[in-house]
Every structure is written in structure tokens, then in C-alpha cells.
């Protein structure tokens, strides 16, 4: 089977065409942000300030890397648990965020916001940070440098493997796939 390459930032049409269970490879530009960066972005919005990145059409990777060794763009770089970003995600999705990469279940509020905005939630393989680091070609801190691993980074990625675990209709692979293999 051919590799299904998906360009990021993600167009509205591409987001709609992705279906739960699709195994895809993301190529282009994404941004990393996790707990502390989300808290700051939310605080900035509450104060009416501009976000450090324009989220429209973009994809956020819930990830805080280990430090890069000399000559490498980044250290180990696998996904963190998405659920901790659930309190903040709907607001960003309503501002146009089109994709999220992480691991684990989301709340109904996030699911509703995914459907409302035609967005997609991808899972990367948790605990495969060394492998995933190979797909990151460059990394640049663009905001909240003081947060160290939690700073917002702009990442150029090439064929980053991910599974669509929730498509724009809200179909959740974590529910359907588990039911398929459950034995009583």
C-alpha cells in the first residue's frame, strides 16, 4: 500500500477527507505545545492578547522533547497525553486549529469542538520518541522559551507517522477498535 502523505498545515478539504483509522504520514510545518504553553495561551486570550502563533489551519503536537545532542535538531520527541490539554483545546479549535497530535482519550467537549470545526485528532505512538525524532528535520523555539521543554516550537516534519483516532465526524477509534478486540 502506498504511504498516505498529508500536508500540514492542514487544509479544510484534507481534514474532511481523513477518516478514523487512517494511517498517515504528516509532512510540512507543525507546532509543539503542552501543558504550560496551553495555560499561557489561554491566559493571553483571556487578556485579549494575540497568540504567539496563528492557529488557523495549523496542527499542534502535544510534545515536550528531550534536549538535542550536538548536530541534531531535537532529542527524543514522542507524544504526551492529550487529555491534559482538554480544558484548553476547544477554544483553540474554535479559533481555527485544525489538528492535534497526541495520545489518549479526549473529553466530549473536545469531540464537539472537533466536529463543530471540521478538525482532526491524530495519535502518534506513545513511547517511540527516538523513532519519531527522525521525522523532525528542524526545531525552533518561537515562544515561552523560559518553559524549557514546554516552550512552543515550530517543527518542520517529514513523514511523521500518525493514526487518525478522531476524524471530523467525531468517530473515535479508541472506542471502536477496543470493542473489536474485547473478549469477555
Amino acid at each position: 500500500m502506498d504511504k498516505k502523505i498529508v500536508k500540514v498545515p492542514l487544509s479544510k478539504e484534507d481534514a474532511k477527507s481523513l477518516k478514523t483509522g487512517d494511517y498517515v504520514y504528516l509532512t510540512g510545518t507543525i507546532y509543539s505545545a503542552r501543558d504550560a504553553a496551553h495555560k499561557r495561551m489561554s491566559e493571553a486570550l483571556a487578556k485579549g492578547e494575540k497568540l504567539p502563533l496563528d492557529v488557523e489551519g495549523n496542527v499542534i503536537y502535544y510534545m515536550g522533547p528531550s534536549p538535542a545532542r550536538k548536530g541534531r535538531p531535537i532529542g527524543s520527541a514522542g507524544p504526551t497525553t492529550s487529555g491534559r490539554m482538554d480544558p484548553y483545546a476547544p477554544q483553540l479549535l474554535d479559533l481555527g486549529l485544525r489538528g492535534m497530535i497526541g495520545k489518549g482519550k479526549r473529553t466530549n467537549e473536545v469531540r464537539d469542538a472537533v466536529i463543530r470545526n471540521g478538525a482532526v485528532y491524530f495519535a502518534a505512538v506513545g513511547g517511540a520518541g527516538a523513532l519519531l525524532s527522525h521525522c523532525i528535520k528542524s526545531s525552533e523555539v518561537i515562544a515561552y522559551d523560559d518553559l524549557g521543554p514546554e516552550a512552543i516550537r515550530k517543527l518542520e516534519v517529514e513523514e511523521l507517522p500518525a493514526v487518525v483516532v478522531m476524524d471530523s465526524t467525531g468517530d473515535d477509534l479508541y472506542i471502536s477498535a477496543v470493542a473489536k478486540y474485547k473478549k469477555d
Partner: protein
Amino acid sequence: MVRDVNVNLLTDNIKEMCIEATHYLSKDMCAALKKATDEEISPLGKKVLDSLSENLEIAGKEMIPICQDTGMAVVFLEIGQDVHFVGGDVFDAVNEGVRRGYVDGFLRKSVVGDPLIRVNTQDNTPAILHTEIVPGDKVKITVAPKGFGSENKSRMFMLTPADGIEGVKNAILTAVKDAGPNACPPMVVGVGIGGTFEKCAYLAKKALTRDVSVRSDIPYVKELEEEMLEKINNSGIGPGGLGGKTTALAVNINTYATHIAGLPVAVNICCHVNRHAVREI
């Protein structure tokens, strides 16, 4: 005979062990992952397990941590009662080892100095240090860096004697099912049964450092470990939570005496990156 042990030895070994544990999985974990990969029936699940094998290979070869969450450093010292530490403070020496391991080893600094003020300490200290006094004149060091994707899904249940073994089984399954995809399955499940509130949690944590191929030497506990592993693997959660039969690689249970009124159960969930390095000095 009292044996003098310089605390510098703790620092040097712990530094190396932090780096070793975060780049190489122990042999028992590698074997368990390989067996799971061979036996997985879900195509997507198999793909996830293949990725994990490839990841381990890259990690060791290129010195990139297996997982970016290089954890909070949990250190166990089993100190022979004939050991006399010299050359400084033991806790300081342990922290210095962790500091050097995480800074020099390019490991992620994931520790905040206060749980609510939340400022990163920049060197992954302090460590979580557990000490035990044992017979002899040696010091056994276990370094087990613990990631929090799975730590967050760990649970404590203060059951009552009437809940019995069925209550214990329910507690374990409840914790695992609730953890689901968030805890990076296939998991290793460390369980403590008995003791007091804090002893029980310690039993569960310690259970995670046991070789995953070794079952309890208490017959009913061994049976419980095997039954729970089967039930967990029938849950359907699978590798990465994307469906399949490999949800856990092992269930390790430790027990201890408890009070006539109680039946504490602690379930410490660990992801497939169940790291531990062990040395004796």
C-alpha cells in the same frame, strides 16, 4: 565488620544508571515486547509494536532517549547494615548523580520544585529516594526513572476485608481500563496489596522493578498475577490503545501484612518503557 563506602560511588553509579535506563530497556522487557509482537493479532497493534522495537534500536544506537519523558528519578537504596557512608550526605550524593545524569546525558528535565508554584528545577532533582536497611555490607542501587503518562493513571483503593480477592481483582481492572490508551500500553502493572496506605503504594512501585518474566513465589499471588494478565489482555485496549490483545506485558504483585480492618490495594501503572537499572556496590 563495618565497611566504609564513599558517597561519591553513589553519585558516579547513579549518573550512569540514569543514562543507561533511559536508553536501553532491560533484557526481560525486550523479551516480553518481542513475544508480544509475535503474538499480536491486530494489524494496527502489530504496527505499533514494530515501531516500538525500531524505536528501541534507534535509542540505543544513536543515544536518543527511548521516550522524551525521561521521568522523575526514583532511586531505591538497599543498604547493608554493615555499611558506613563516608564523604558526604547520602541524599545530596544521590541528587548529584541524578543531576549529572540528566544534564550530561541530554535527558529531559521534568521536575518542578513545588507542586503548585511549578517552576522547573532545571536538573531533574530532587530524586525520589527510598532506603531500606538489609543484612550485609553491600549497597544495591535501583534507578527507575518514572514517566507520568502512566504514573497519572495509578490508583489507590482502601478496600475492606469483606471486599476480598474479588474486590482486589476489580480494583486492578478498574485502574487498567481507566488508564486505557493514556498510559502508553502495553503496560506493566505493579500492584501492592496490604500494609498501610503508604506501604501499599511502595509495594506497588517496587513491584515494577521486578523482572517481568518472574512470577511471585506465593502460589495464590502467582495465580492472581496470571489471571489478571489474561483478563487485562482480554480488555481489547491493545498496543497504543488502538485495539488488540497486548494491553499488558506483566502484572507484578507484592503483598504485605495488614490491619484486621483493612485491605489496601495500590495499582502503579507503567508504560512499556518500564525502566530500571540495577547495580550492587
